[in-house]
């Protein structure tokens, strides 16, 4: 797809081009939003606000990077803002644990499929969930996460270590259950 032309058409307020852009990225971006929220409804709300922001700020896209990456960053920022604004997430986003927690060196093989893994991530507390997604999936540094979330770097590291350990334990349990079920099957 010629993103360059597509963006130009969208800037001309071509409705079909806008729809084409939306259709092309909406599925993946909804997956991003899904990882940051607790329900599909919230995820779609974030997706909607995110795409509104995309079309509103599309003129700022300079074609210096991937269009998908640019849209993804908008979606992530929109999701974080959504979490901050939504009262259901605000209490869980309070980070009081500033103690450092060593990151586990345990790197279990992730045998889960994509949706199962996403479901486990979504089971994390919202604070853990956001930081885990930002660091492990999006690749943000803890400094960047600290700025985004309004916390210091140490808190981000601590929260991430806890989230990672928690998720790994869940993955192990989930894998064990599936393995048992597999063995149990005739």
């Amino acid at each position, binding site marked *: 797809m010629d993103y360059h032309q597509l963006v130009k058409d969208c800037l001309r307020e071509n409705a079909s081009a806008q729809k084409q852009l939306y259709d092309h990225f*909406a*599925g*993946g971006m909804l997956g991003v939003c899904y990882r940051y929220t607790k329900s599909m409804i919230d995820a779609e709300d974030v997706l909607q606000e995110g795409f*509104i922001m995309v079309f509103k700020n599309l003129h700022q896209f300079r074609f210096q990077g991937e269009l998908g990456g640019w849209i993804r960053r908008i979606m992530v920022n929109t999701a974080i803002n959504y979490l901050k604004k939504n009262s259901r997430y605000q209490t869980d986003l309070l980070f009081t644990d500033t103690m450092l927690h060593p990151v586990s060196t345990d790197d279990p093989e992730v045998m889960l499929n994509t949706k199962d*893994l996403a479901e486990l991530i979504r089971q994390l507390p919202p604070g853990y969930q956001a930081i885990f997604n930002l*660091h492990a999936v999006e690749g943000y540094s803890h400094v960047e996460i600290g700025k985004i979330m309004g916390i210091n770097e140490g808190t981000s590291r601590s929260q991430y270590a806890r989230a990672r350990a928690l998720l790994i334990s869940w993955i192990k349990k989930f894998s064990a259950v599936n393995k048992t079920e597999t063995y149990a099957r005739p």
Partner: protein
Amino acid sequence: MHDPKFEKEVQQKMEELTFIPSEAVWTNVSLHIGRKKERRLAPVFWISLLAGSLLLGAAGLYLLYTHKEHNSLVTIRANQDPKSTAILARPDKNSGGWAGHQEKFSRSSTGGALSDKSTATPSVSSGHAPENKTGIALVDKQAISNSRHGQTSVIITSKAGNTPANTGNTSANKGSRSGRKTDGQMTGASLQQAEASVPASTDPVYAEAGTATRNGQSLVELAPLDRDEPGDLAALLKAPFLPNINSTAGLPGPGANRAAKNTNLHKKAVWEAGFTGGAGFSTANERLIGAKTSNLMRDVVQPSSSFAGLAAAAAPSKTYTSRTNADLSFLAGIFARRPLSRRVAVTLGLNLHYYSTKVEITEKGGYTSISAANSLFNATSYAAPAPSPAPPEERHESVNQYYFLELPVSLQWQVNRSPRMPLFWEGGLSVSRLMSANVLYFDVNSGTYFKDGRGITNSTQLSASTALLLGLSFRGTRLQVGPQVQFGLTALTDERITGTKHLFYGGIKFAIIPGKRK
């Protein structure tokens, strides 16, 4: 340092995570994009509306300024016929109210004083004028039909060469003159411009005008003009007129501003004070828009039977056309405003409003003209070339001035909801009191001009006004500016004397509400 193998696997798997969003998401997104377009178009709409309003106001001012109100016409025709006759256009007794006010003056050709005798001129309704008494028909049927626009004209014809021998004939030899009711103000003065060739011109044309009283009001008459003096009209116009100073109450000014809305004015409901002002043009018209159907012209126009006299007129005639043009007007005052709701506010004010109209009399020779104009947007003039070349025309101007003290009451409604550029529509009434005036009036009954301070002017005026104002804010001070028009609901003067006159004002208004600098 741990191996980020776990993170890579998670990242890889999450890249594959996709869902199909519901249709509602795109619907809402597209709707929001559409609303964004509407919001983008909204300023264009309001700016266009404002520009259109300003353009309309400017066009109105242009019309006001360029409007030529041919209030009256006086034509004096010289004829070599030894049996000179003077024809006075006479009111149609059957034509209505005007006939009752009509006065007819006949002037002796021997130089006698102007008498109050009515000439034997037949009425228009009769359709015929005796040839011995009516000398010249000045208008044709077309002019008659065109005169139905409420125009007033005075037509005086006097055949040149009148000699003392003519004095024996009272009706035919006397130079007769008629003052015709006109909407204009200055037609009658030109009556004095009887040509010097007419011996009767030695008579003071307006001898009795100096003592004229109208409806119990003493009219300050201009000095009687000698018919022998060709410059009578000029002298009349150049005479120092007593300044009329009328104070007019200004238009209601200020309105609610968006900033006031932001401070919950509807809750506080406090009075605000400010200054208002404006400048533009004013005029005095019979009606605001549209021509008035009037039969006044029939009082003046001779029937077609007298066209023979027109053909017989070999000598050039003189025409005096009086026009009332728009002139400068301005107002200044203070106001207090109280919001009634978020978008509606009531305003009380006190303004000093200056109106002025310019009266222009043009003297033309060799033409017989019929002019008609009584409304703001209607002006028609007809002219037929005379047999001889026309001498250069002369113009004389006089400015009528009024000063009114106004008490405007108005409601102001915020049309849009824009906090940056609120648009207000304002409408209201104002009661005004004439403080001073310097006016040259034309008495339609006697055909004379007279100065008047406050004699026949209705001192109390009721006016309606409307304005479209754009709100601006500078460091806490709110400014509203936009076009404004005001029309006098009550007659400016005694209609029985000068005809129906209403003040009209159009200009740019501004209102300032001082605020605390933030």
